[in-house]
């Protein structure tokens, strides 16, 4: 399966980190359910056009943190993570996206008031 991951070469965040975060977000939001089979390191590297070194690092970190598990000879799967962790990541993901949007608005000299209008009308 192809994962809906979008990488930015221009971000200050290292590529392996971007992969890690986006997979976590997919798991936390329920788009990737526990037990779902994930692409192999080589297949994901090809899709994302990155080296296996980078993808392996992302998978290793996810495995270490308990988000995914690798079964010898069977592949990599989404692990069962607890509800509070899911919630934490969901909040993190949303907060990060908002922080970025607010940063962009300030870069363009938007006032807090103008930003509030967006939030209310959305």
């Amino acid at each position: 399966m192809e994962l809906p991951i979008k990488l930015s070469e221009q971000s200050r965040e290292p590529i392996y980190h971007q992969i890690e975060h986006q997979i976590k977000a997919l798991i936390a939001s329920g788009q990737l359910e526990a037990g779902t089979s994930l692409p192999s390191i080589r297949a994901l590297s090809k899709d994302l056009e990155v080296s296996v070194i980078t993808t392996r690092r992302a998978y290793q970190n996810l495995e270490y943190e308990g988000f995914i598990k690798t079964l010898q000879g069977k592949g990599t799967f989404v692990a069962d993570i607890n509800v509070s962790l899911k919630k934490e990541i969901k909040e993190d993901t949303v907060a990060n996206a908002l922080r970025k949007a607010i940063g962009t608005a300030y870069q363009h000299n938007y006032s807090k008031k103008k930003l509030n209008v967006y939030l209310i009308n959305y």
Partner: protein
Amino acid sequence: MSYSIEVKDLQKTRDDFELGPFNLNIEPGLVTALVGSNGAGKSTLLKTIMNLVKPTSGDIRILGSYVNHTESWKQDIAYLPQNKLGHDPFNGMQLKELVSSLYPNWDEALFKRIVKDLDVNLKKNFKNLSPGGQQKLALALTIPRNAPIIILDEPTSHIDIVSKTILLDLLAEWMEDGERTLILATHQVEDIRKLADMVAIMKDGNLLAYKDKEALIETYTQYWMVDPLPTESLPGEVRRKGSKTVITNDETELEDYLSQHQLKWLNKETLNLENTISLMLTK
């Protein structure tokens, strides 16, 4: 760490050309793209690895065996040269019989699959095939040898878009094993983006860089300035485009300089893979 291929202090001197000296250690599990302008020494390096060209000095080891002392490593490596000497008078079926008899691990099922997927013509004599047809047949004769190392010298230059997509998928699948090694000399950016983990860049017989793709694209950053830049050379400056755009290989030093001189930039971006390689090869 045990390497698949170790190139140590390699040097080859000919009348008009000098290769090396350099070292290159290639790990199993990785795809290396060997890039460089025509005449940079890519094919000579590959031929030296295959013991077809004798180095002036230095050593090559394949899976630990010195290539000039032993023969057994030849089973461990499947090499597709640019010039397929001696193929012309035979058709694909005859060539397959010949090649498969030399490789005891020949994977007949994989051969059949490649022939079908890439629509390889087995009936025409090699010399009567189009350049693309010849490349497809040569690949079908190389990949199923089931060797732990494959070396392909410009395998995709004439191949059509559809077949190329299939081929890249096939090679990625071949790498799934995790312990295999693939080296391809190529001029195709798509090969590098989709398949390569490491990029080895050669220029005038020297190895300029051997890095993973993500490290490579961090080499250069381009800045778009608000006002024209001073004419003096800036920290890490590699190239300038007009008076307001500069490319550096040292972000930190350049940004220190710019803030000291109160010069503002509108935007900065790292160069993409293609532009990074081009700049390395031309600067």
